[in-house]
């Protein structure tokens, strides 16, 4: 591998000023993510997972430390349209059909019309939604909406995909199914993926690297490199190797958790 | 042709028949004038319209004209088609009012919006306070209709001989059931509809000439209307865009208005002017300072002199 890191954070700090005083959302975060990795962020509510993803996406600006994306500042990276971002809720615009939702970033980035059509077709196929382009979001189930929102983030050429609890609102079975599909997609496209989740099995199942975080102040408490093979059937979740990693994650989590918040 | 805009004090009705007849019969055309008549209404003060430049000449009552003059709108009377006033106070006989001595303790309907000066002058003359109570009168701001009398909300209301009085009769109350006080007879009559322009415009000879022709044609219209009341009423109806008037009522109104204009050739009688001013000055009160000092140069006879030659 030619390892110039895609993301490199050094002593990253982010403090929000609020009415109740400062909130240390991130404190001294160091992390490197290499090209083609699938990195999950897991940790209790409020530990700064979302904040970290938002810093990468230049939606928040750190109050200390440095971070580079593809060797640039996050703002430059955003201007270069270096990444796609998938939010927890599908966040499709209800007044646009699925196809037009996927077209939205392309319109903004000024792709030519024919190219847009081609790409929409392509990503719809990629997420198994052929033939649903003309439907409106509310005509689709939650799982399908979420796939559409992933398609939207895939439609333009970004090598980095940031996903903030994309499957949080779905039921376990649908979630399993989408997890399988996401892995397949990742294998096919060789993108780098940053993925926030609350679910330990999900994190273990998907990732090449698991980042465990802990709150107040938000920091990284453990980084676990997965020993699982790249090829992962769903049944892998019943293997001792899988359970061992899950166990380590759970321990890491429990250490950093305050129950009464 | 020269443009002239006339702002009326009230809606299109036979009260202004002379102007509509002059327009309709081509009297203005004969004088090479292109006249626009703007109807008025309860929210239109012709005095402010003319001061804002929205009209060249207006009709208004002399009391309101003089009051405006004192407030900084230099109006000047150029003609006085109404010799007599038509303002009256009408009471239901069953209310028990027979003479002004019966007023204390009563409720009287009065028109405001610049029409209240004669009433306050009268009360001042009678020495009756207007703040209500047993020895004063309770004053209502009467809407421009006769409902308060019909519904017995007031003992007496303001009417014009040519309009509301007829409505009361029309509603089915006979003249015998009414007691009517005419302001003229009570000695507080004031000049009603006259033509007024801004003093400084009149300095302009061209404008002066225009007004001479306007007054001449208007008076011709008035005299025609007096002689042909039914035709005049029809002309008024034709000019009423609201479509709310009835020919019958306008015929009645024309008949009554003719009685008021009959004595005038258009020229203001300075004696009438003096009387109006004297009445106003006799009734100065903090509530109603129509005018506080004797006006000067508030009328000119030059226009009518020139017009009537």
């Amino acid at each position: 591998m030619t390892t110039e890191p895609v993301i490199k954070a050094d002593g990253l700090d982010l403090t929000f000023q609020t009415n109740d005083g400062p909130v240390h959302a991130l404190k001294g975060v160091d992390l490197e993510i290499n090209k083609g990795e699938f990195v999950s962020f897991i940790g209790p509510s409020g530990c700064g997972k979302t904040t970290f993803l938002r810093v990468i996406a230049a939606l928040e600006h750190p109050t200390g430390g440095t971070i580079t994306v593809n060797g640039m500042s996050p703002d430059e990276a955003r201007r270069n349209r270096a990444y796609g971002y998938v939010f927890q809720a599908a966040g499709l615009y209800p007044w646009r059909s699925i196809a037009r939702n996927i077209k939205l970033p392309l319109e903004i980035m000024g792709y030519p019309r024919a190219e847009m059509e081609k790409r929409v077709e392509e990503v719809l196929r990629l997420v198994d939604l052929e033939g649903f382009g003309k439907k409106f979001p509310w005509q689709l189930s939650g799982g399908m909406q979420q796939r559409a929102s992933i398609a939207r983030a895939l439609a333009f050429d970004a090598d980095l995909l940031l996903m903030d609890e994309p499957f949080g609102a779905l039921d376990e079975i649908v979630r399993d199914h989408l997890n399988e599909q996401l892995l397949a997609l990742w294998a096919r496209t060789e993108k780098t993926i940053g993925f926030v989740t609350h679910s330990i099995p999900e994190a273990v199942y998907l990732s090449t690297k698991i980042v465990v975080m802990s709150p107040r102040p938000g920091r990284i408490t453990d980084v676990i490199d997965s020993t699982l093979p790249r090829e992962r059937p769903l049944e892998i979740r019943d293997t001792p190797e899988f359970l061992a990693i899950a166990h380590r994650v759970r321990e890491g989590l429990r250490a950093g958790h305050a129950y009464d918040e | 042709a020269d443009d002239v805009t006339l702002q009326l004090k009230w809606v299109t009705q036979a009260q202004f028949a002379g102007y509509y007849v002059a327009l309709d019969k081509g009297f203005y055309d004969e004088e090479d004038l292109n006249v626009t008549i703007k109807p008025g209404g309860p929210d239109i003060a012709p005095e402010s319209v003319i001061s804002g430049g929205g009209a060249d000449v207006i009709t208004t009552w002399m009391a309101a004209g003089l009051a405006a003059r004192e407030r900084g709108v230099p109006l000047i009377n150029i003609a006085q088609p109404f010799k007599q006033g038509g303002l009256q106070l009408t009471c239901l006989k069953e209310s028990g009012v027979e003479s002004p001595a019966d007023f204390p303790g009563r409720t009287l309907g009065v028109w405001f919006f610049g029409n209240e000066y004669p009433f306050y002058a009268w009360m001042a003359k009678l020495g009756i306070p207007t703040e209500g109570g047993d020895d004063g009168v309770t004053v209502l701001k009467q809407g421009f209709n006769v409902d308060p009398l019909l519904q017995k909300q007031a003992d007496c209301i303001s009417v014009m001989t040519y309009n509301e009085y007829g409505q009361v009769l029309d509603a089915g109350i006979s003249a015998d059931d009414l007691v009517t006080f005419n302001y003229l007879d009570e000695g507080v009559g004031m000049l009603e509809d006259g033509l007024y322009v801004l003093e400084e415009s009149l300095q302009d000879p061209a404008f002066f000439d225009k007004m001479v022709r306007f007054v001449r044609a208007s008076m011709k219209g008035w005299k025609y209307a007096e002689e042909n009341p039914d035709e005049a009423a029809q002309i008024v109806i034709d000019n009423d865009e609201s479509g709310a008037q009835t020919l019958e009522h306008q015929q009645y109104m024309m008949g009554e208005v003719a009685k008021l204009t009959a004595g005038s050739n258009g020229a203001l009688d300075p004696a009438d002017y003096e009387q109006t001013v004297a009445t106003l000055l006799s009734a100065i009160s903090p509530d109603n300072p129509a005018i506080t000092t004797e006006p000067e140069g508030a009328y000119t006879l030059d226009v009518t002199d020139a017009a009537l030659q």
Partner: protein
Amino acid sequence: MTLVILSLAFWLAAYLFNNWLAKSRWSGSRAVRLAVPAIFGVTVIVVWEGLVRGLNVPMVILPAPSAIATRFAASLDLLWIDFVQTVVKGALTGYLIGTGAAFVTAVLIDRSLFLKRGLLPVGNFIAALPIVGTAPILVMWFGFDWQSKAAVVVAMVFFPMLVNTVQGLADTGKMQRDLMATWSASYWQTLFKLRLPAAMPAVFNGLKIATTLALIGAIVAEFFGSPIKGMGFRISTAVGTLGLDMVWAEITVAALAGSAFYGAVAMVERAVTFWHPSQRN
């Protein structure tokens, strides 16, 4: 001309200053939140004064703010009498009766879907009857004094309040209602413990809309007949006698009273619906 230019310059300066304030570090502070609209108001007044003087606008067209202020100060007693007549007697009485009646009606018809379906559209239709037409009729029915003004106000505020309250009473989550059912709560228990509290935001919305309607209604109704006091009486009379400074003094009173009335209701709203997300910023 210089005055005109000066006032325009003032406007520009105030605009830039406000922009700077709003973007500045203190933009969230209470002081700035009060200062910005205040500066805007002062600017309007300064420009108005400058234009009226600079362009020599006649007093009978538009008086200068200074003239209005002078008249205001000189006529405090008269303004107070008018205020009591129109706002306290006319507007406030009508407001209380109208909103109160609408509230009770809403609770009563709320039990019947049939009545709601029928009454609300008809109510909207009746609410569309323009006040300039209804006011003379109500003056004819209820006399010249404040009672007819209150009646006009009742007619104006009743339906907006009714619609809002009915909407509010329906504004409960299915889960919240189901909870009541699991406790097998009675109709009245559900009404008092769930639906009325839940309706409060909408009720106050209605109450706020009704404040401005009440004031306008009471004033406008006086145009169609009144005793010789009251803000509407004074305004219409003063327009006719070219006392434009008095007209504007009354308008000032109306705006002050209206804003204060609105503000007071909004304050009660804050206290009552403290729990609603819109009140928590």
